[in-house]
């Protein structure tokens, strides 16, 4: 029963769990002022876990293990690596956040939610999927409201909890209906039944809509996005960064797996109908996100709305329902995770020193700390989709997939939206590079970075440039992940 494949299929989860246990054992022995070092342990442990699972946990042909609960394939594997990377970066960024980073629990919650995400990416069964989603969400509710003394943080945690509970119960209702109609909870068996016509179209449509509510919440797709700006603004910034990247990508991992399993043939009527539904959602998500980002003055809210719009761009690849489409979504998410973590990391580093979060407070940043300014340039230009940063290539691939599938109108909407995006991203950079802060001798007011920030930001910035220039290896991994869907 315990075969090596079984072990390999949940190796990342096991390793993450071991790190968590280690923290539980070690942390009480450390003095209060040393507890931030748990961050080094978490980040280093996740890094080692990534290497171990790269060496020993690579999937071969897709198989299902654990009694059909988990599917072991490249799609899941690639997403798990991405999540662990995002987790490591977040742990580093947490360390010097005074109210959160000094407490060992924060890292433990982060790891717990990582286990959930890893399982989300590889679930092949509705029950497993639901458990995974809840395992992801509950620690994140706590993390969002971690700063008890801070009203906004408490509000964020509570809001996130209410939205999450509501949407996941709607999704659970969908799951139970699906089980009632078919008598099975395995995603791949369900897909077969749908194709052979054992499930009526109306029922399938309705049930999928219910499930989409839950996924849409995780991925912050309009109209399930209302929580995002408030939660990002109130939650501790590293947590907001994690929510907007790994947690969103986990939602997409489920969306991609479900959608492609259920509709392997894009020419079926129901597949077309769903593709058009998703296309409309994608267009609305992009447009709403970008238009609402325009008037923002708080940088965290700006990033929140921009991250909503990025979910819209990524969905263009889902709509395409082709191998390139799936590969482009995975590639887009990889580029997006790096870029957005970088952006949030800079916001953290800046507000840790200054305590300020408004765009206008960034005036003169490039004079105060030229390198921080340059990294912000890289992050924002990558979000705007400019080369040589990751965002450009990712956008071109997604657009290429959309055009291949014949959705020229959707690509045109995407392009109009990128123009809006360029406007507000460049506007933000104008503060960094052009305006002067109230003290005229900015050179003497640098924004010092502590070592964890330096490491995290440098790795992320280099990653954003690498993914945008030497994109062949990244793309072939995304492509391998996409191949497993067919």
């Amino acid at each position: 029963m315990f075969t090596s494949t079984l072990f390999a299929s949940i190796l990342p989860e096991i390793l993450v769990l071991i790190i968590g246990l280690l923290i539980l054992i070690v942390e009480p022995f450390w003095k209060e002022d040393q507890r931030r070092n748990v961050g080094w342990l978490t980040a280093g442990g996740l890094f080692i876990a990534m290497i171990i699972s790269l060496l020993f946990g690579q999937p071969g042909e897709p198989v299902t293990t654990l009694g059909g609960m988990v599917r072991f394939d490249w799609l899941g594997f690639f997403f798990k690596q991405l999540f662990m990377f995002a987790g490591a970066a977040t742990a580093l960024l947490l360390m010097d956040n005074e109210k959160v980073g000094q407490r060992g629990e924060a890292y433990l919650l982060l790891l717990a939610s990582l286990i959930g995400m890893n399982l989300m990416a590889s679930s092949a069964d509705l029950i497993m999927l639901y458990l995974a989603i809840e395992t992801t969400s509950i620690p994140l509710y706590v993390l969002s409201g971690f700063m008890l003394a801070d009203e906004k943080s408490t509000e964020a945690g509570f809001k996130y909890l209410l939205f999450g509970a509501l949407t996941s119960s709607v999704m659970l209702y969908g799951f139970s209906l699906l089980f009632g109609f078919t008598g099975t909870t395995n995603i791949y068996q369900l897909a077969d039944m749908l194709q052979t016509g054992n499930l009526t179209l109306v029922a399938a449509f309705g049930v999928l809509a219910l499930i989409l509510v839950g996924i849409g919440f995780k991925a912050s797709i309009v109209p399930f996005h209302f929580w995002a700006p408030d939660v990002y603004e109130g939650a501790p910034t590293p947590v907001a960064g994690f929510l907007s990247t790994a947690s969103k990508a986990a939602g997409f991992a489920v969306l991609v797996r479900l959608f492609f399993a259920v509709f392997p043939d894009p020419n079926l009527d129901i597949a077309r109908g769903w593709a058009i539904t998703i296309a409309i959602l994608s267009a609305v998500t992009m447009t709403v996100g970008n238009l609402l980002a325009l008037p923002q003055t708080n940088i965290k809210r700006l990033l929140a709305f921009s991250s909503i719009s990025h979910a819209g761009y990524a969905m263009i690849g889902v709509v395409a329902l082709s191998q390139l489409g799936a590969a482009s979504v995975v590639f887009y998410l990889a580029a997006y995770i790096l870029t957005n973590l970088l952006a949030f990391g800079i916001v953290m580093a800046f507000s840790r020193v200054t305590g300020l979060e408004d765009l206008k407070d960034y005036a003169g940043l490039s004079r105060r700390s030229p390198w921080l300014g340059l990294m912000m340039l890289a992050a924002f230009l990558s979000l705007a989709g400019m080369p040589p940063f990751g965002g450009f290539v990712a956008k071109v691939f997604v657009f290429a997939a959309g055009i291949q599938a014949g959705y020229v109108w959707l690509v045109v909407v995407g392009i109009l939206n990128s123009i809006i995006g360029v406007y507000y991203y460049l506007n933000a950079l104008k503060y960094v590079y052009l305006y002067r802060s109230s003290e005229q001798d900015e050179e003497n007011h640098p924004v010092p970075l502590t070592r964890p920030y330096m490491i995290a930001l440098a790795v992320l910035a280099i990653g954003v440039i690498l993914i945008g220039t030497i994109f062949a290896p990244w793309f072939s991994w995304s492509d391998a992940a996409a191949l497993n869907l067919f």
Partner: protein
Amino acid sequence: MNFPVLSVITFTPMVAAVLILLLPAQRKNEARGVALAAATFALILSFWTYFNYDQAAAGYQFVEKYNWLPALGISLHFGVDGISAPLVLLTGVVMFTGVLISWGDDHPHIMAGIQDRPREFFAFLFILASGVFGVFVSLDLFMLFFFYEIAVFPMYLLIVIWGWIVTREYAAMKLTLYLFIGSVVSLVGVLVMYWVAGQNTGVYTFDMLQMEQAGFSQTFQNIWFLPVFFGFAVLGGIWPFHNWSPDGHVAAPTAVSMFHAGVLMKLGAFAALRVGIMLLPQGAQTWSWLIMLFAAIAVVYGAYIAFVQADLKYMIGFSSVSHMGLVMLGFSTLNRAGLTGAGVQMFSHGVMTALFFAITGMIYDRSHTRQIPELGGMSKIMPFATVGFIIGGLVSMGMPGFSGFVAEFPIFMGVWGVQWLVAVIASISIVITAAYIMRNIRQVFFGDMPEKLEGHMTDVTVLDKVAITTLCLFMIIIGLFPSFMVPMVQTGVENILRLLGGA
């Protein structure tokens, strides 16, 4: 494998930009030194490429090809032909002179050149230069697009940070949005071309040499030629999408204006030619009347607006619209004379406007005004710059013996062969140009110096003189010895004609 000269040229500025950023902020002169060294190196290599291009063999030379993303048919495929080799040389020249001009002089009265944060300035300028080189040498459509976008975004920062304080925020955003809209419109066309070419031939590739054989249908070409050509032509300053250009010129600092008018506008025209006309030749034949109409309007309208400007930089900005209109006019003829003229005009105009903007910048740095009526008598203080401006003026008017004549004469010949009426109308611009150039030379450089400028003016620096001399030499050499450039451009034109005829 031969020496990969084209990739070295393309990536030299990029590497230099990183090196400059790694220097400490206080070491301004070291930053300038690295910049000058890199620019000189790139200039020498582009000269080498130009003179070693084998005109008898023609075609694409110094070809390098590395697979970049085989799954989608993207490769790093470099090569130059008779059209792009002069443009690579032009970029080298403008980059070299641009660095010289920006070196500046921190004499308290003058503050010429770039004194505030030169490190960042040169780094952004060089990233821009890398993008420009990359577009001129890329034979892969994806990479061409990649470099094209790299050339666009540093402009925003260069203008917004170091630009003219009054209009820089407005102009920089306007310019960036115009160029971005243009480029994404052509991106849609490019992606559609990629898929259709793949369906037609079975090979999905962004390689332009293979896409030339894709056999696009007549209807397809008629539809998609418009977004592809005009999307790129926005950067070429084509009427009615030229509005960003004079505003951008005026707001930009001197070296950026030189780059912008001298090289960037060629980038748009070149990409429109390479992607629009060469990959969709039948579409070009269908729509050539429209390009000709727009170009003819640009030529006359640009010259007329330039005539009424009181601001020296606006005048040059609109004269650029007019001269780039001549390039587009040459494209629209689709015949040998017109295309050859357009090719030479791209080089000639690049050198000429770079010179105009350089001298305008020198005057502005010292007098702090660009209003033509407020200037006068400069020839007494800066005789060297005066001579340079007059030579540029003669080129602008198309005087025989200078490069402008070599370029414009074939264009008008080509247009005459297609539609004589357009040639007649467009030639009005020559008269207008002569009028405003001569009026300005008289007002700015001769006559009496206004009282408030007395004592403030100093002569240009030695580096400025080197830059002026370099630029003037090219205009005179091409004018006296057209064989320096015309046969080279003709080899490139033959290839375009083959595509147009064989279609």
